[in-house]
């Protein structure tokens, strides 16, 4: 992989152990975490700390009766929809604002002020407007994602090398082409940073939304388990949520590696 360059200078046989060290480190950390978890369960009792094994059994059970799938789909539906809307708006607005520095200066304080609104606190009001379906949760997710993507993409648009834009203008590129083929690609590193922050937030926002209003979903299951003092159910829900975020993150990382494959590999960051 990316370690090929630097390890090629080293004697044969060193390439594989470098990967192993990382993998071994990960396994060791996972074992340590599980041990701490198990210790917590023994020290404080299952009401305060559901044991790992019981949590795993609960997840298997949920998978067996179909609850795992319906919960995951419900949470994913809300977070994906909110994510797509928030992301599209967060990307589009900086490109629109670029067209008018004066409008940007005028709008900026309002955007900053609106960021201060506590989004979860909006939920009761959103239920008033949109009812108890997916809509109020989608709006909350959208708001979380929108601001994160907006700020990172905005920074990216401002950071584009003006010389590249001048070059593109001189060779006859239209402003639309420049936006698409110069500015957008230049800001991809910023965009992916925003995505990586926004995606877990989208899932947690959907889950918190489900605490307040839902008939299914990971958040709904966690909240119901909490009401029944079913700590194992709470832990199972958290593990499912974490797993979901990890899977999504892995997908984003793969997408990023593909989209930014042109970037020189940073030697200091190699394994």
């Amino acid at each position: 992989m990316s370690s090929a360059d630097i390890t090629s200078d080293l004697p044969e046989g060193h390439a594989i152990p470098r990967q192993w060290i990382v993998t071994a480190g990960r396994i060791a950390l996972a074992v340590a975490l599980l041990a701490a978890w198990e210790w917590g369960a023994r020290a404080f009792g299952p009401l305060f700390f559901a044991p790992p094994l019981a949590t795993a059994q609960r997840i298997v059970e949920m998978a067996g009766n179909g609850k795992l799938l319906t919960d995951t789909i419900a949470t994913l539906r809300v977070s994906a929809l909110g994510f797509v809307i928030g992301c599209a708006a967060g990307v589009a607005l900086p490109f629109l604002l670029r067209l008018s520095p004066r409008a940007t200066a005028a709008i900026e304080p309002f955007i900053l002020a609106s960021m201060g609104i506590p989004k979860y606190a909006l939920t009761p009001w959103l239920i008033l407007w949109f009812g108890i379906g997916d809509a109020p949760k989608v709006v909350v997710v959208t708001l979380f994602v929108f601001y994160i993507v907006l700020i990172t993409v905005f920074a990216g648009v401002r950071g584009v090398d003006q010389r590249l834009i001048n070059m593109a203008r001189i060779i006859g590129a239209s402003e639309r082409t420049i936006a698409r083929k110069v500015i957008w690609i230049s800001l991809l590193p910023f965009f992916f940073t925003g995505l990586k922050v926004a995606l877990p937030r989208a899932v947690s926002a959907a889950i918190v939304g489900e605490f307040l209003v839902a008939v299914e979903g990971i958040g709904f299951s966690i909240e119901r388990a909490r009401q029944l003092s079913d700590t194992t159910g709470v832990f199972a829900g958290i593990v499912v949520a974490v797993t979901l975020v990890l899977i999504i993150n892995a997908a984003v990382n793969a997408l990023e590696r593909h989209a930014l494959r042109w970037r020189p590999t940073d030697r200091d960051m190699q394994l």
Partner: protein
Amino acid sequence: MTGTQMLQIKNLGKRFPARAGREPPPWIIQDMSFSVGAGELLTIVGPSGAGKSTLLNIIAQIDVASAGEIVFDGERIAGAEQKTLHPGLNRRIGYVTQDDNLLPWRTTIDNVLFPLEVQGALDDAGRTRAQELIGAVGLTGFERYYPHELSGGMRKRAALIRTLVYDPPMILMDEPFAAVDAQTRTQLQEDLLRLWSLKRKTIIFVTHDITEAIALGDRALVLTQRPAHIAAEHPIPIPRPRAVKDIFTMPGFTAIYEHIRADVQ
């Protein structure tokens, strides 16, 4: 006479806009006039900070003039009253800048094809031309390399042929070979002269290197420090084709060199 003039600069002046409550900023370029003939390779030599890049930016229309006017191919293209810019003058003026400004996410071939792509003119003929130009400057085999994988000289070549690929009649060059080592620079200069002899573009080549100005130019203008204006004009009667690496052995070289050096100071 007018038929052979490609570009006329008339009493050009440039100063940056005044700020409220401050003294008006000094002129960077003042009362500058010169013209460039069709197919001529004009070199402009002057010290760093003399406003050479500003001059080219105004001609390329990524900056506005504050006084005077510019006539391109018989048509008045810029003047002090100008409100809107037409960068590159609808692809008739190419610009090779000091930085190569290659798009870092595009390979050599995709960078060279970029002008055709954005102009909607990417066809088989364009691809063939790009491939020929890549061959002409010795970049064959490096088509699929990203800019960060190329040497400084290779990036300069890629930037040069990216401008040649869409065939603008006039090309501005702003110290394009300043940042490479002496040996590579000589090679790049010879590449440029060879391509120029084939295509006969009108070129304005700006440099601070007197030897380069003599080796390349049909004529050299000497620019003085701020406000920049033309201090002297030297025809360079050294016959072509010229061997750049032996240029200082050519008869007349020393005399021209001494004259220009005296004018620069």
